[in-house]
């Protein structure tokens, strides 16, 4: 059976993050510009790492799928997993980032920047729980070429 290039299945292992970029380039490299693909790769990488870390609590042997779709106005990645549901409202808006003034490094956290990166890379983030499945949609609108 020939694998569907518009879907990828990943195991809950951080090494699997490195399959996302090559898959995206193969699936949409002919359709999207390099910077859009880089943004989608970064957003999807953050989202999958989040799923492994939180929805699956770091447990190996679980499954995550990513599907890519086009609707004439843009491109959407749909990530699905069967882990614990995300906290209510987690994906509703971009978290506040540090203020502009210089920051004391000692006060910085080493984690917690993934959501800001996701929101910075895509135009729309939507999450829904459907039965036992988490569904996260990351969408970018088609960008005019200069």
């Amino acid at each position: 059976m020939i694998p569907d290039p518009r879907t990828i299945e990943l195991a809950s292992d951080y090494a699997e993050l490195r399959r996302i970029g090559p898959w995206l380039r193969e699936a949409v490299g002919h359709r999207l510009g390099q910077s859009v693909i880089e943004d989608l790769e970064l957003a999807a990488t953050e989202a999958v790492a989040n799923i492994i870390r939180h929805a699956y609590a770091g447990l190996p042997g679980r499954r995550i799928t990513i599907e890519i779709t086009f609707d004439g106005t843009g491109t959407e990645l749909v990530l699905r997993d069967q882990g614990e549901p995300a906290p209510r409202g987690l994906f509703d808006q971009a978290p506040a980032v540090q203020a502009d003034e210089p920051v004391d490094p000692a006060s910085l956290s080493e984690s917690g920047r993934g959501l800001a990166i996701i929101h910075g890379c895509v135009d729309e983030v939507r999450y829904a729980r459907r039965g036992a499945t988490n569904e996260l949609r990351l969408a970018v609108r088609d960008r005019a070429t200069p």
Partner: protein
Amino acid sequence: MLEPTVRTQGVTVYRFMEARLDAANAPTFKDRMARAIDQGDVRIVLDMGGVDFVDSSGLGALVGALKRVGSRGDLALASLRPPVQKVFKLTRMDRVFQIFPDTDSAMGRLKET
């Protein structure tokens, strides 16, 4: 993963040898940096010219290294490629780290301090 390439006037340049710094290798990177810092390399230029992808886990490991150096020295980043620069800007970490276009300018700045 991490190779010292230059040591001069108390400043050490480390080159990050992989193309990605992400959740898969961030823990190892953090350990290697901690070892280097604890062995006395506290004025470090990290050459990231070969890196084309950094995620929030990689960023977290860099923040960990910056905190470990603390007031004992400096950690400067050099030669960030555009996709990596974008991650720093999105998270405002470009305002936290000393970032230089190349290792020479980073070394020049650290030698002054």
